[in-house]
């Protein structure tokens, strides 16, 4: 009777369907249109003939699965060993902003740091190493993809850690850990047996998204990965930019193969989950309490967490310094001259791109926010849940490689005449921003005390009044965080901007990637920092605004309900 008793809110029940359409149609349509040219025999024959195929496939699998495994392992270790320690607050503050660092900027910074002529070698030369010229060492672009994996791990660890932190409260971790400790289990063992299973169930989709990204990244593979042969994703990108256009069928076939490879790796991952569960049960039944492991585990978690954070921060500092550097020959630890010349000469172009980038990011994020809030409100008002839950489908744009779906999406956009201007680019960004906004906001919304709206309703407040006066104000902090994340995701989009914008929409990222093709570290540094500044500003607002708005409300000042 009660459901019928609620008057149908105007249009609310349409929002979930609309949101699903935004998530699903571009992805499926793009995939279908992308693969069409590849399913001629020509494309597949060509990639089968390519002698590097086996190596490229192996490399994609090894670096993708390897980096995901390491990042997940470290995230789990940090959550297990450090979460209630004072150092964790510091680590979290160091790692959270790094989520906003664009992949390309992180990779370029890292490349300069660890190269034989990089900052580390410069800092140690010649006094410690005796090097007057850089040593001929294969550190970057190594054939095993170790440098690429390092970059991927450093970039994905913050994401997995924050997703894990968001899921942790739902796992009742403190009480479970106490119970496990009281039963004589070590910290690591207690975490593995009592907290990890429910936590991992919530982390599974983010982990698969990380796996898909790691296997399909083009920017990071181009900068850090091997090239003899490169990863499959990079080779597909190279085929796409073949000057003779002869390789387009191969690129389409390669993208299809890449998609299949990602699906295969995910299947493999899910199988490995079972094996891991078996191992854990074996551990449980052997009866070892694992207390001896805790010291080493805590040490490893601390070193790895702070080490990777330091590596990324040092990389970004390197970019910043290059943007100010005059001549900086090896082995000088610091540039010969420092000048603002580059910033002066770049400022007009930078400002123009910054404005456009911000506009697109705000529109895409605003639209995503409206859709997500609409879905959540519809769910709240009508108990309405789509046939396939949104929290599953929302991963679709993250799981399907961009390089597989975007060329097709470009064809569709061209056919529809909706491309080449910023609204079209913002619409394309929406597809990729929406998942992050949803993932960031839904837990806070659903975690809100159910009794609050009930009380408000019993006081005579209409659903609209409850939404505007109660729910949204209480959720200001998580909403701002979701907005900041949405801005960061939009700012970082390269392929959608390039393909849907037809080159006419020059955002910070497309300009930065074009400049990166010139290898000019000073410009890359300046544009990389500008790319970083926007999301960083967003996150600063997300942290600062709630404090300002709620300066007289102690319970809300620390930011974030639920």
């Amino acid at each position: 009777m009660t459901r019928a008793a609620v008057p149908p809110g105007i249009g609310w029940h349409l929002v979930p369907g609309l949101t699903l359409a935004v998530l699903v149609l571009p992805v499926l349509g793009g995939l279908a249109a992308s693969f069409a040219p590849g399913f001629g025999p020509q494309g597949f024959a060509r990639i089968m003939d390519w002698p590097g195929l086996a190596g490229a496939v192996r490399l994609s699998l090894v670096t993708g699965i390897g980096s995901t495994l390491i990042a997940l392992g470290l995230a789990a270790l940090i959550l297990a060993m450090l979460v209630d320690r004072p150092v964790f607050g510091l680590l979290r503050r160091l790692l959270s902003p790094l989520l906003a660092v664009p992949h390309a900027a992180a990779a370029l910074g890292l490349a300069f740091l660890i190269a034989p002529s990089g900052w580390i070698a410069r800092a140690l030369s010649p006094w410690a190493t005796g090097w007057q010229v850089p040593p001929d060492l294969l550190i970057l672009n190594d054939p095993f993809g170790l440098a690429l994996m390092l970059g991927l791990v450093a970039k994905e660890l913050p994401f997995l850690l924050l997703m894990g932190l968001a899921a942790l409260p739902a796992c009742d971790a403190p009480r479970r850990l106490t119970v496990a400790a009281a039963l004589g289990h070590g910290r690591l063992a207690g975490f593995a047996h009592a907290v990890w299973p429910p936590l991992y169930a919530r982390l599974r989709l983010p982990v698969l998204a990380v796996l898909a990204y790691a296997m399909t990244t083009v920017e990071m593979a181009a900068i850090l990965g091997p090239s003899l042969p490169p990863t499959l994703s990079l080779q597909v990108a190279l085929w796409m930019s073949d000057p003779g256009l002869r390789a387009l069928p191969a690129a389409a076939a390669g993208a299809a193969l890449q998609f299949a490879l990602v699906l295969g790796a995910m299947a493999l991952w899910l199988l490995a989950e079972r094996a891991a569960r078996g191992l854990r049960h074996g551990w449980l039944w052997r009866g070892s309490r694992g207390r001896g492991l805790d010291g080493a585990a805590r040490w490893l978690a601390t070193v790895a967490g702070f080490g990777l954070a330091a590596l990324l921060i040092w990389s970004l500092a390197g970019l910043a310094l290059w943007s100010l550097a005059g001549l900086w020959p090896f082995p000088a630890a610091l540039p010969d001259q420092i000048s603002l010349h580059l910033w002066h000469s770049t400022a007009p172009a930078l400002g123009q791109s910054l404005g456009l980038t911000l506009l697109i990011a705000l529109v895409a994020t605003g639209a995503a926010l409206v859709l997500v809030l609409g879905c959540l409100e519809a769910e709240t008002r009508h108990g309405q849940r789509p046939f396939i839950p949104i929290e599953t489908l929302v991963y679709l744009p993250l799981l399907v490689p961009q390089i597989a779906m975007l060329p097709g999406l470009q064809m569709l956009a061209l056919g529809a005449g909706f491309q080449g201007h910023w609204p079209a680019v913002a619409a394309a960004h929406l597809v990729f921003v929406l998942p992050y906004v949803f993932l960031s906001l839904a837990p806070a919304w659903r975690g809100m005390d159910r009794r609050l709206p009930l009380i408000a309703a019993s006081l005579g407040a209409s659903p609209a009044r409850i939404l505007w006066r109660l729910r949204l104000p209480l959720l200001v902090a998580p909403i701002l965080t979701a907005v900041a994340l949405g801005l960061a995701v939009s700012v970082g989009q390269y392929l959608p901007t390039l393909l849907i914008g037809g080159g006419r929409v020059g955002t910070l990222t497309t300009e930065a990637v074009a400049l990166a093709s010139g290898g000019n570290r000073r410009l890359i540094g300046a544009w990389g920092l500008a790319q970083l500044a926007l999301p960083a500003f967003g996150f600063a607002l997300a942290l600062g605004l709630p404090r300002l708005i709620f300066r007289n409300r102690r319970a809300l000042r620390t930011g974030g309900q639920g």
Partner: protein
Amino acid sequence: MLTRRHFGQITLAGAGLLLAGRPALAADWQATLAAAQGKTVWWHAWGGDPKINDFIAWVGTLAQERHGVTLEHVKLAATADAVARVLAERDAGQTTGGAVDLIWINGENFAAMQAQGLLHGPFAEDLPNWPLVDVAGKPAVVTDFTLPTEGRESPWAMAQLVFEHDSARLPVPPATLAALKTWILANPGRFTYPQPPDYLGLTFLKQVLYGVMADPALLQAPAGADYAAQVAPLWDFLDAVHPALWRSARAFPASEPALGQLLADGEVDIAFAFNPGRASAEIAAGNLADTVRTFVLAGGTIGNASFVAIPFNAAEPEAAQVVANLLLDPEVQARAQDPAILGFQTVLNLNALNAADRARFDGLALGVATLPPAALGPALLEPHASWMTRIAEDWQARYGVAP
């Protein structure tokens, strides 16, 4: 072809005379200028070099001042992105109002667009500034990788391969290909080349090919049945030097800028670039030590021209032609050749210029690292594209998949 050369030679008197002799053409151009007024040209051009980006921005100011044309530089990571864009538009049935108005192009990209019928024109030889172009002295301005341009692209800069070395570390560079090989073997880890199919990497292979082939003249015809025998010396050369390359040839820089960065970082002692003025311009910009100098190999180095082309579905083809013509303006050409700006060599015939315009070029300093024209040596013609297509594929199979 003959007519065109002939044509170039009779233009000594300058453009004005010629225009007076062809009133119909002049009227056409007035119509073009009128159609271009107030329009926006989207020029898709590689955006990896801030010096070039600044130059294009300057050309944009000039286009606005002189012709009321707004120039927007679409900064590409690779020219093929723009080519693929036009192709995608054609496949989607968009035959007008395309995203690309003007595209910086040459070589394979041009051949591909030409073969697919993606280009507007012919237009180049109808441009008012065309008579100033040095067709006779620089045949590469009408022949792009042995392919006649047929007026579907207009040249705007000459390029020639030059090698760069830091005289502080390497006072006397090798002067021949054989000496280069000896030097590489004697100094392991101090030389490399961009990984083919990168443009500059392939250019280095062409340069080697010219030096080791029995009869380099064969390169001007399509690769034939004896291809394997003809290029065998190239593979012998590479097999010999690869173990002594940077990173033992287990990694290669990606592009010309990446190679330049290796020289700046001191990771290699000899680099090369497709621009005789690059080193001087980089020194002027404070990116390269002022001890860097350039040199060429005996017998000449590969040379070609950079062009602009207009896609068949360009939204503003008239305004694009106005920009193409502006790029041939002596003032613009002189600025491009200024080593403090770009250091690109002009495509114009200096003898065809009036005194004032000539003075713009005569007044240019050469740049600390740039070779004088006499020392630059002959420019070798680009081989037919079929050679490089096969060589790029064979290089991949030989060296590109198993480090």
